[in-house]
């Protein structure tokens, strides 16, 4: 039998070269979706294969990798992807945002500000922001070529007419460097402002849809809106029940079947860091109790 053997970071060198070329063009044309010959990965399409390929093409032995899903290092898919790289590339991993050189994420941008030299790799399901308005790639590609984004504004405006608000709560479209309308992946719109003028490099990988795109550091990223309906962030208006943070995005936790809810930071590293620094919310465990966790 052809017993399988695998290269450093799983991908073969030819595949890495192809992905690396795509990443460079993506950085050179901020917000533009570069087609690439995405490979079948040993995890399913839709589960981060795009992000995994971008990370694999970039990762080196001196990198420190953090993987989050929903803001948390301990969700099963984040664990699975982190283990994959620890195994295939032998890289050091961390849960601390500050210490990571490469952060692969699904659906969140960490709360702690990123710094220069860090790379944030987003897993993207549907990279085309116009896809829900126009299913055909041939059409949407033409619209991007001509900067023809009227349809997107019409959609947002129809929301306002119907609901009184722009009814997009996540994957909220942005314009990058005043040219390309871009899908930020299904992050809550709370995170959109963090993309603007970030010191970190942001790379987006969509494996099934075979696209890579990028936001270079210090690049203007504007959430689409209207003068009379400006973009607004949303977070549940409460402090985190564990660390008391009032500026972090919260997960809603159903605590019984009588309507009780609790709100805690979705960014677990941020929350734990705050608790370690002595911050407390109304539900936080005393330090001696935490040891069981």
């Amino acid at each position, binding site marked *: 039998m052809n017993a399988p053997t695998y290269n450093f970071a799983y991908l073969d060198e030819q595949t890495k070269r192809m992905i690396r070329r795509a990443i460079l063009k993506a950085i050179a044309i901020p917000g533009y979706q570069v*087609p690439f010959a995405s490979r079948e990965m040993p995890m399913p399409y839709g589960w981060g294969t795009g992000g995994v390929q971008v990370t694999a093409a970039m990762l080196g032995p001196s990198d420190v990798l953090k993987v989050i899903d929903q803001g948390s290092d301990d969700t099963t898919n984040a*664990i699975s992807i982190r283990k994959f790289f620890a195994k295939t590339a032998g890289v050091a991993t961390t849960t601390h945002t500050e210490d990571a050189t490469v952060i692969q994420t699904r659906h969140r941008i960490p709360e702690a500000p990123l710094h220069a030299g860090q790379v944030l790799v987003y897993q993207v399901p549907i990279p085309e922001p116009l896809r829900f308005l126009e299913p055909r*790639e041939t059409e949407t590609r033409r619209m991007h070529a001509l900067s023809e984004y009227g349809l997107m504004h019409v959609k947002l405006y129809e929301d306002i007419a119907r609901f009184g608000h722009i009814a997009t709560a996540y994957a909220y479209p942005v314009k990058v460097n005043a040219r390309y309308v871009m899908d930020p992946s299904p992050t*809550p719109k709370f995170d959109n402002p963090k993309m603007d003028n970030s010191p970190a490099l942001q790379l987006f990988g969509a494996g099934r849809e075979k696209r890579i795109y990028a936001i270079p550091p210090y690049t203007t990223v504007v959430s689409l809106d209207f003068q009379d309906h400006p973009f607004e962030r949303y977070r549940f208006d409460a402090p985190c029940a564990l660390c008391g943070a009032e500026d972090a995005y919260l997960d809603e936790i159903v605590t019984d079947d009588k309507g009780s809810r609790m709100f805690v930071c979705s960014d677990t590293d941020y929350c734990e860091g705050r608790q370690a620094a002595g911050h407390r919310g109304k539900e936080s465990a005393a330090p001696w109790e935490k040891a069981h966790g």
Partner: protein
Amino acid sequence: MYVAIKGGERAIENAHRLLAHERRGDCDVPELSLAQISEQLGLAVDRVMSEGSLYDRELAALAIKQARGDLIEAIFLVRAFRATLPRFGVTEPVDTGQMQVRRRISSTFKDVPGGQILGPTFDYTHRLLDPQLAEGHAPEPPATSEAVVCAMPRVTDILGKDGLIEPSPQASADSAVGDLTREPLSFPADRDLRLQNLARADEGFLLAMGYSTQRGYGRNHPFAGEIRFGEVEVEFLAEEVGFAVPLGEIALTECQMVNQFGGSATEAPCFTRGYGLAFGQSERKAMSMALVDRALRARELGEEVGAPAQDEEFVMSHSDNVQATGFVEHLKLPHYVDFQSELGLLRKLRREFAEAQRKASMREAAE
């Protein structure tokens, strides 16, 4: 007091252990060997090789065993392995005209040179469950006769000699064959890429698409010109040696559909073609593929494009079951944060709605 959920890593490990246990089932029942799968579930192996896009019976059997018989999961395992293999080059085109035929039928002519060969087929079996088979039962040895050595020309070639069918569209010999696993796909896609996509496509998807053309969604009046199944030789032109070296034999099923004719003031009317090819004995796949290939040639043949099966962007973007199952099943992954954002918005809209209702009813009461 609330403590955030931890221990995902152990949960994953335990889930994998449990899965391995379930896969094996009752240990008092003898374990399946790869040879048993390959020999006795041969058509499943054929399908996994076709859609997995890798001709290796043993690996396909392993994948089926590992996937507990879930063929899409098995196809995925084979694909993920295939993606890591080094590429040495491209073989010479196989010549199905030289196939060692095990089965060959034409529905267009009563008899053709080489004859109709029914071969191993479910056709004309009465679908009655067989209790004998449940017991384990040695079948009769197959009937044999003297091998008749005679040429078995393809039916489409016979039609082609009289100009009754369009010549098979040929690419120029020195233009490279596209490969959608190496190049990102863009539309419109040429036929080489379309055929590659269809060859890897989910059998069920192609079956439904092909069926839809028969029911009028892009009808093209097909006849099964010929279906043949058997072994062909694969050759590789090694530059250092300077000639084609035989690599071995593979089993293939080929379907040539003969379809509704085209023609114009300047071109004599003739039949058109739809082509299907699959590893092993995969007739349903090859036939469906041929129907969809013909439907996707609508643009090239100047037909109106309207039905789903004629829409190459629709067909090619949705035909791959590894992609489709990944994305459908990814809905199992956590979506807490985007759901939370949506929930916040919905609550706000509902609050505003209730407020507007309340004001309206107060106005009504006041009037």
